């Protein structure tokens, strides 16, 4: 099973940097989520990894560049486009064509069609396929060579909720078999359920890379919510022990920088009565938005005014 090792990936368009010196690893047996705002450079990075775009840096799949792999689909499966097929070539023929390039037979084509649930439309022309069916066909293509590594760009786009759940379980099962799965997505709640590790970029540059739990734990949104009749005393005590204190509209204190156990013990030792002591854990979305603040390529200037009774 292979480790993906990306080093110094960089790419500019007309002098404007799109990807800036990105380096990261993707370990076998895990799903690594690739996150970033729109225009952050995720798709460009994936194309650079596969030698499709010209730029600086290198990516090794178990020590080999993609362009040095013999029959590459047997090593790395990729899904980069939503509908990467000719609209009138049948789904089965599309896969037969890809299979022919890698010495794979029709039996394997039928197997992957069954794996992604497209057996019934195998001989249909994909021009009538929904976006979700197109994604399934693209995934079937990526799986053709039974590769040890998968690189998937927004594979859940266009899938219905059942399809998204299927994709999540499917990718997790592939990772559980020891494969390296590198997947980008905008669906943060899905990523939270699916990924073991994260690579987060903004404006083409690295923001964070590591275990997802660590990323979420580092968020400033993690806090301890405390309600007490002795607000001033507890706030002073928390600050003396390195905590940052904010008052919420409800009158409760939101304290960061101190563990819930520490705060409980401090209150007990100083005879401060507590009515609530709750650990508020940040979501992946909160952590992501916090870390990528200001890194959006496209920023709205504000929300439109909302009038009572709707737009009516």
């Amino acid at each position, binding site marked *: 099973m292979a480790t993906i090792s990306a080093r110094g990936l960089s790419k500019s368009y007309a002098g404007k940097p799109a990807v800036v010196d990105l380096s990261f690893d993707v370990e076998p047996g895990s799903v690594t989520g690739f996150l970033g705002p729109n225009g952050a450079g995720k798709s460009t990075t994936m*194309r650079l990894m596969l030698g*499709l775009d010209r730029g600086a840096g290198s990516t090794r799949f178990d020590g080999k560049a*993609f362009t040095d*792999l013999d029959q*590459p689909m047997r090593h790395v499966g990729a899904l980069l486009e939503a509908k*990467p097929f000719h*609209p009138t070539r049948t789904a089965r023929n599309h896969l037969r064509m890809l299979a022919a390039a890698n010495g794979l037979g029709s039996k394997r084509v039928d197997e992957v069609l069954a794996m992604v649930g497209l057996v019934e439309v195998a001989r249909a022309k994909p021009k009538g396929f929904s976006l979700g069916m197109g994604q399934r066909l693209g995934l079937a*293509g990526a799986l053709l060579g039974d590769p040890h590594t998968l690189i998937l760009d927004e594979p859940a786009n266009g899938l219905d909720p059942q399809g998204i759940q299927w994709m999540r379980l499917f990718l997790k099962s592939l990772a559980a078999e020891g494969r390296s799965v590198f997947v980008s997505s905008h669906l943060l709640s899905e990523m939270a359920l699916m990924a073991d590790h994260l690579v987060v970029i903004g404006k083409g540059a690295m923001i964070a890379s590591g275990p997802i739990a660590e990323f979420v734990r580092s968020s400033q949104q993690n806090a301890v919510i405390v309600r007490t009749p002795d607000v001033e005393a507890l706030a002073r005590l928390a600050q003396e022990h390195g905590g940052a204190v904010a008052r919420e509209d409800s009158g409760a204190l939101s304290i960061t920088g101190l563990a819930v156990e520490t705060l409980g013990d401090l209150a007990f030792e100083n005879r401060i009565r507590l009515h609530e002591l709750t650990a508020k854990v940040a979501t992946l979305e909160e952590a992501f938005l916090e870390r990528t603040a200001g890194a959006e390529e496209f920023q709205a200037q504000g929300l439109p005014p909302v009038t009572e009774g709707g737009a009516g």
Partner: protein
Amino acid sequence: MRDALAYEWTRIRTLRSTWWLTGLAMVLGVGISGLFSWGIHHEFSTTGVSSGDLDGLGGILVTQLAATGQIPSVICFVLAILGIFSWGHEYRHGMIRASLTALNSRRDLWLAKYLVVGAWVAVVALTTLLLAGLLGQLVLHAYADVLTAETFGVIGRQVVYGVLLTWLGMAFTSITRSQAFALVSLFLWPLLIESLVFVFFSFIPGLKDHTDLLRFLPFQAGGKIVNVLENSSSTFGDPLSPVGGFVVFGGLAAVLMAASYVLFRERDA
């Protein structure tokens, strides 16, 4: 390279457009030659045959009159669309990235496309021209021998022209990455642009003295590869000899192919 050839071979056979363009070229080729043979038979049977009537007849008949130098080859232009589609579909339908993740050697993919499409066009063109010749032989056997050594020579040169035209269309599509632009250009260039240049040279005083240069226009030169009615004094004389036409037209195809290869290697997919 074998994998790339297998990929391209499967690609070309699994497209419906390949089959209808192939069928169209064969029907048009045999049909036009059949109509021409029937017309000639009618003429010969009513007015008799003189030896001058038979000059270049076989070549003209099998090439659907392209060997007269008056019209372009119908079947070659239809078959060249296969070449335009071979690159056009890659970019129009976003296939190129899937192709290059299935085949990671750009050189192999590039070569395989030219070889497979070129071979397909050569076989279809050869088959069509031979069928056209056989039909002509059947219809005109009482008056002339259509399938002579000279006719086979013309057939060979027409096949070469067809492959060169296809490769030229492929290279142009690969460079522009636009199937629509390449399709329009393939027909506008010989039919309109070169005609416009002719008109300019005919009416603009400073250019009138240089009309002999017009023989080097690519499609004018390409037409000389199969022309059987003109005699040339030398390879690059006026008119060009078949070899001269091949060098000019083939040279343009080679230059565009080289440019397309360099760009395909260097550009983002």
